[in-house]
């Protein structure tokens, strides 16, 4: 059978070869050294749509998916409700089969959506400017740290010990690549006076709210930037980074309407003070007018970017997560200010209900006494892995095992997806240990 993804017929091919003036397609590959041409490829035999769909549905069914399991796992990827409107909008192929909007006249849909995205991100974070998105929260944090070094002309960054450990690893990879240095510091201790930035997570990796104003003060006292890594859903009720004086705010925005999808694609939010606009990485869209004075949108400040500035660009980022930025925009527009606030409050109240019931159980306690949002660390009476196995048998994905950081520690996450019934069942199983 011919391939559905090649449109030429044999007759077309013959006619085209005739026009080119060669006898076979093979002749078009003459520049490739003979001894490496005709490589052999060991790949499975091709399958039809019907056969492969069947096989992959079976493969997918080997995963415990969260339509069937209750989930109390967070730590950077979050199970939140996704309105159907999101999928219907991004399912429009004019959006998802377009390239990066280099030809603005036929890309106004993507460009205007990016302008909307930058706007809602600024509204949400309280920051002055936003780019059109980064790969994920961790690379956004890493690029923010690099930007701080360039803005401040300093070669060191300071990261709080309460930042998500994998974010710390990613920041380290990026910072060391540039031959800069990185230190980790306790927020109640001192930080190097020659550091370009202090990176803080709010709420932190353990779910708790830091005394963020003091962190901002600490950074600004030494002339460093404060980089806040935030949970965008938490901003439905908690003070935004722009309000407490952060210089750069970054976030993983998977939670804003994207499925967890085993960790990607997600989206990184990157927003900052307007004075650092020209040092920002990534695409930025601006509103302008066409030759008739009609409003329209273009990619702007492109002299920051790799395809214009090459090695002097602010970043190498090119293809990013544009479709996921559209997702976040649709999500935030669907929820609106009341909806996001409501979702944040559902998370807050349900998480506190769960925490209160768990801490009443014998052998369980909260590790920290500070206020928290939707995640909290508990100390268990036995190894958390044992508890998670028991939970899994009853259709529950337990929290993250953090016993390497805290004795018998487990990091739990509760969102609007968790019903009271699920929480009660969680508590019941925990109580059996």
């Amino acid at each position, binding site marked *: 059978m011919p391939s559905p993804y090649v449109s030429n017929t044999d007759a077309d091919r013959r006619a085209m070869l005739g026009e080119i003036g060669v006898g076979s397609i093979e002749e078009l590959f003459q520049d490739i050294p003979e001894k490496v041409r005709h490589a052999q490829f060991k790949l499975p035999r091709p399958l039809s749509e019907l056969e492969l769909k069947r096989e992959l549905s079976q493969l997918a069914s080997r995963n415990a998916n969260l339509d069937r399991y209750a989930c109390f796992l967070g730590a950077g990827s979050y199970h939140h409700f996704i309105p159907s409107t999101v999928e219907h909008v991004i399912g429009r192929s*004019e959006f998802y089969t377009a390239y990066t909007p280099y030809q603005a006249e036929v890309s106004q849909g993507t460009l205007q959506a990016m302008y909307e995205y930058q706007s809602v991100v600024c509204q949400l974070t309280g920051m002055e400017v936003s780019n059109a998105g980064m790969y994920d929260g961790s690379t956004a944090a890493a690029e923010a740290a690099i930007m701080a070094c360039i803005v401040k002309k300093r070669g060191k960054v300071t990261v709080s010990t309460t930042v998500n450990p994998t974010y710390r690893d990613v920041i380290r990879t990026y910072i060391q690549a540039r031959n800069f240095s990185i230190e980790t510091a306790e927020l109640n201790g001192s930080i190097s006076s020659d550091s370009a930035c202090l990176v803080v997570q709010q709420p932190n990796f353990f779910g708790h709210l830091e005394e963020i104003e003091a962190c901002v003060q600490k950074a600004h006292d030494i002339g460093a930037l404060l980089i806040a890594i935030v949970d965008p859903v938490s901003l439905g009720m908690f003070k935004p980074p722009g309000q407490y004086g952060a210089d750069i705010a970054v976030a993983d925005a998977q939670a804003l309407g994207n499925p967890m999808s085993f960790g990607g694609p997600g989206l990184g939010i990157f927003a900052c003070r307007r004075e650092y606009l020209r040092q920002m990485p990534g695409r930025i869209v601006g509103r302008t007018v066409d030759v008739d004075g009609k409003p329209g949108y273009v990619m702007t400040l492109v002299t920051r970017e790799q395809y214009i500035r090459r090695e002097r660009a602010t970043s190498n980022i090119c293809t990013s997560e544009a479709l996921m930025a559209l997702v976040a925009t649709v999500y935030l527009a669907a929820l609106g200010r009341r909806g996001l606030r409501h979702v944040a409050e559902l998370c807050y109240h349900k998480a506190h209900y769960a925490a209160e019931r768990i801490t009443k159980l014998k052998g369980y306690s909260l590790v920290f006494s500070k206020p928290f949002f939707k995640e909290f660390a508990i100390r268990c009476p036995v190894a958390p892995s044992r508890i998670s196995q028991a939970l899994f048998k009853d259709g529950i994905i337990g929290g993250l095992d953090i016993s390497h950081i805290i004795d018998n520690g487990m990091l739990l996450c509760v969102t609007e997806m968790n019903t009271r019934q699920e929480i009660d069942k969680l508590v019941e199983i925990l109580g059996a240990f």
Partner: protein
Amino acid sequence: MSHHYLLPDISQPGKIGCSLPALDVPPTELPPGELLRQELELPEVSEVELIRYFTALSKLNYGVDTGFYPLGSCTMKYNPKWHEDIARLAGFASIHPLQPEESVQGALQLMFELQEYLAEITGMDLTSLVPMAGAHGEFTGLLLAKAYHQDRGDKARKRILLTDSSHGTNPASVAMCGFEIGVVASDSEGNVDMKNLESVMNEQVAALTLTMPTTLGLFDPRILEISQLVHEKGGLLGADGANLNAFLGQVKFGELGYDYVQLNLHKTFSTPHGGGGPGSGPVCVKENLADFLPSPLVTKHNGTCKFLSPAKSIGRIANFHGNFGVMCKAYAYIRSLGAAGLKEVSENAVLNANYLKEKLKPYYHLPYDRTCMHEVVFSGRRQKAKGVHTVDIAKRLLDYGLHPPTVYFPLIVDEALMIEPTETESKQTLDSFIEAMKEIARDAEENPEILHTAPHNTPVKRLDDVRAARNPDLRWEMRSQGVG
């Protein structure tokens, strides 16, 4: 057709675009007021308003599903619809990246097999699926080169060589990895200038990044000599794999002498580009670089898959394991084509490009008149003499309902027009593109004004980039409405 309003223009207090459940547990006291926000201004629209707004926006866009999209170097091929459905299966989309490994064996199996397939397709030994886009993969490849030399105690290698036709991401990635840049010139045939390479390749060079075929759409027939020269001087050979569509299923990077190659699943392996992502930029390496790969890799023992961090890993480059949703589509693509299908891809991609080259050669200057691979680079030099620039040609194509090629790249071709038709396009489509390009060439001679004022029937006409950069208007603001 044009679309003047924004979300805040249709927002009205009291509306919402989705329904949410009520609280089903006893409420807790809210935290202290100083932690809470006082204002949150987001648009408030009903569901129908939301859908109509974004539907109207989508109609202002041009995608592969709209029509021909010969954007050079971007491989804008058609993306099979059912591959989208695969990534959306609940068993793939609705799983948490930190779930216990035994609960996600299906996903790990898919990743493991994709690692193997990509290694086989490129002729390399191991694959990291973590990089989330092409530039992220380039960054990873360069970090591998850095780690490799440092591990051998060779600290003198501070430079990466790039060709003068390289993508902008190449030098930007080099800078991000703390290397210096050395440039290798191209010769008059569009190949690497061997004399120049000999003079710049020395013990200070960590690696040569060489896109193959080059960004001129040409295969360098001396690739094996280049590889030998680089290796003799102790350097590594890395590929920007953006152009793999040219020899997919025919030639292996590994057999050309490459040590590492970065792929673009969102180009070659037919995952849609999304208007600027999501992408996926796996890196495939030879054994000598395997220990340095980013964490995590997927391994398999006795039928069970696990994540593993290589012994001397460069560390983490992403929060999780990469863009898994994109991997699902690329996996489905490879499995639906098989080895013979992949070969058919490159055959038709190269045939289509050479057909365009022959048919357009009489009308546009062809700086390198030889057999091309998957794309062909013309110059608008002839039209420039008449006062018509490549940008005018590109904008006029929009009037024909066609997406223009890549323009002004590569930088070494004056007024460049880089055309990549891809294998999914038919001769009929190519013929209508050729007709449009012929008419445009004629208009450049006889009626240049129509090119200068193009496009004429798009939702907006040419936009004022200078104004956008000079007075950046990057967002709207909404007035305060207090706490909801």
